[in-house]
């Protein structure tokens, strides 16, 4: 009896211990409950669909406004927009929810989630609705269609699209005796200008760096494309499923070497991985140039206010490749097969509304994401907007001057989120003198390739 009692108390104590580490394991059991209502069968029923997105801050406010307008103009459909954290968090919530098929009807997934979403089997390709309805997609930006078309089908509808651009402090340019209307075009000029822009106080402490960029894997991918180089094999995973990444070549090393050189020379400041930390450094005048998404333009302009003048330029080049350019970033809208066709059709209605010229104009003006449809450029409001804020033009011109090829289409990899983080670690290692460029990239390559192999094996393709 005593031993039995002991056994029970032992089990309870053991249980406490397990609970101590088990907290992180049991999370996956809890599926996110979603608000789903059962449809009624009357004629004037309202179809409620849920829409998951990852737009916070001023982006989220603009998005909610658009959803509100949709609901007002479409009495038969009610879209419930739910903010699910950043792109990574949102995708991970989706994966958890889908284990019990309780995901939303529409989900906004970032560019690099495309391969995974196609493989997941959760999505209804928007191509289906385009074909059924003979919806005209000729007005959509060709670069966007090139990115989101997988195996000859447009799987998702591009919604918020961005590319990286160079932001610079025009006032600081003037003070340093540089022409504020000619931003640097390549890294030699970044170095040259950066040295002139660098400011130190009496004690030798840097008060203004010449240049900065966050340690963000997206920039690495963009600089690969800018050099016309591939990130993954099999034509960036577009001719056939990618089986390995190939960024440890000359192009990849070139990027990291330049980065390290600028940091070592003290020209470039390292504000870490946090994207907003570098952005804040720019608005606070701590760095005179930096790289960020076009989608941050509004945030930068608001943050800077009247402190100084902001200029924008193309992503600086690392070589004289003529086939290079930028890859589409941002996200697209996916229709999920969680519920019946009725709901999917409603979701399609919503998506059509979101990419209509009027909505895209509003979206562009309030965020900096460029319009996904070229029809916007014919609108008089757009013309006057670009005259008032010429900085918005850069992204559009950069996009239109980018040739469409395998490099600029961007890579399709199932484990892209993980790959991006691994590359970030590799760059950090080099900047912190823990490895040479070649070592760090080779190591990253090995780890990503293992993940790709595992992925390809487990999806059975």
């Amino acid at each position: 009896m005593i031993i039995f009692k002991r056994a029970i108390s032992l089990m309870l104590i053991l249980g406490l211990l397990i609970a101590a580490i088990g907290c992180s394991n049991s999370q996956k059991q809890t599926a996110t409950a979603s608000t789903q209502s059962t449809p009624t069968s009357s004629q004037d029923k309202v179809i409620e669909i849920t829409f998951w997105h990852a737009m916070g801050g001023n982006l989220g406010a603009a998005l909610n406004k658009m959803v509100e307008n949709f609901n007002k103009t479409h009495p038969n459909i009610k879209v419930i927009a739910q903010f699910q954290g950043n792109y990574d968090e949102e995708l991970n919530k989706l994966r958890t929810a889908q284990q019990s098929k309780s995901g939303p009807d529409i989900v906004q997934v970032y560019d690099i989630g495309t391969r995974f979403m196609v493989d997941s089997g959760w999505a209804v390709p928007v191509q289906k609705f385009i074909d059924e309805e003979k919806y005209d997609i000729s007005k959509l930006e060709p670069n966007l269609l090139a990115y989101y078309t997988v195996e000859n089908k447009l799987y998702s509808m591009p919604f918020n699209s961005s590319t990286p651009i160079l932001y610079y402090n025009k006032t600081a340019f003037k003070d340093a005796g540089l022409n504020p209307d000619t931003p640097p075009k390549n890294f030699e000029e970044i170095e040259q200008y950066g040295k002139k822009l660098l400011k130190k106080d009496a004690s030798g402490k840097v008060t203004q760096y010449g240049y900065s960029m966050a340690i963000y894997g997206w920039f690495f991918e963009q600089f690969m494309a800018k050099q016309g180089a591939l990130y993954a094999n099999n034509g960036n995973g577009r001719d056939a499923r990618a089986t390995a990444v190939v960024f440890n070549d000359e192009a990849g090393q070139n990027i990291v070497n330049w980065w390290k050189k600028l940091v070592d020379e003290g020209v470039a400041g390292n504000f870490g991985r946090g994207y907003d930390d570098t952005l804040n450094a720019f608005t606070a005048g701590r760095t005179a140039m930096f790289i960020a998404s076009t989608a941050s333009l509004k945030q930068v302009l608001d943050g800077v206010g009247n402190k100084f003048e902001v200029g924008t330029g193309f992503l600086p080049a690392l070589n004289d490749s003529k086939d290079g350019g930028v890859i589409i970033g941002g996200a697209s809208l996916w229709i999920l097969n969680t519920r019946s066709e009725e709901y999917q059709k409603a979701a399609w209605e919503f998506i059509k509304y979101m990419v209509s010229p009027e909505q895209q104009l509003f979206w562009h003006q309030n965020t900096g994401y460029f319009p996904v449809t070229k029809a916007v450029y014919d609108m008089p409001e757009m013309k006057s907007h670009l005259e008032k804020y010429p900085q918005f033009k850069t992204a559009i011109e950069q996009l239109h001057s980018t040739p469409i090829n395998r490099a600029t289409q961007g890579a399709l990899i199932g484990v892209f989120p993980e790959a991006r983080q691994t590359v970030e670690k590799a760059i950090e290692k080099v900047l912190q003198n823990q490895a040479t460029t070649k070592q760090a990239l080779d190591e990253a390559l090995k780890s990503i390739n293992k993940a790709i192999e595992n992925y390809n094996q487990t999806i059975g393709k």
Partner: protein
Amino acid sequence: MYRIETIHSKESYKVKRHTLGMPLKNFKAEIEPYLYLLPAASIFIAFTFYPFFKTIYISLFMTGPQGGLSKFIGLKNYFDLLASPDFLNSLYVTFEFVLLTVPFSIIISLVLAIFANLDIKGKSVFRTFYALPISISSASAAVIWTLLFNPSIGFINYLLSFFGIPAIGWLTDVKWGIVAVSIVTIWLNLGMNFIFLLGGLQNIPKDLYESAQIDGANVFLQHVKITIPMLSPTLFFVTVVDIINAFQQFGVINIMTQGGPVDSTNVIVYSIYRDAFFNFRFGVASAESIILFVILLILTVLQFKTGERRVFYR
């Protein structure tokens, strides 16, 4: 289990013999205690034991990108982990983190508790201040400290600049990342430790100090000879809890460094989270959890075996 059952039935047989003719009462005495245990036990079974055994089960599999089990691979996950430099680094970082946080947070809170236990004016104000971190969630604390550590607009570097100390890359420099998250963790732990230790101090009878004073012991000696031994049960408890907490630290690291720079703050729990909910490799993550469990189990047993002997229970 077999042994337990035989003894059990023997005992109940004995009981039956003595209380012959009262089977209902007997039954009640036998079963009733377990009924009281039932609610707690069923919660444990549902939320602790089931996930635990499931975790062991999953750790023997390769898992697909959507979380499903795809292939039985035996102990391969464990072997891969123990051969992986990244995982060994995580183990190292975890121990480093424990050593950086636990001693400091206990020493600082002990000193604060001793001061707050003095008979001075306004001591309740100090007590409230010292216990304040308890009321702040680790997530919001991490956000606030991230701002304080910010490389361009952070207050801490600004403060240091008055002493001529050049700007420190708290969250961007490989050497400082672990220090920054440790500082925040120590600060967060202070409140709870302080309350426990203060409670312990107040339980020490005043006459012990009085007689020591009469014998001519100075304040330092009084604390070494009286406070520490009398407080040892509380100190032991605080140490065990702090170590387990340090092994599980997640919130602060997730918000402040995401395991970076270059994995210098990638403790095991964070790497479990990464593998499970970011890379969606539940098999590997489960194996990591089991390894962490074994480490914690060994440590706790060791602490009870060695530490408890030095604890003085009145």
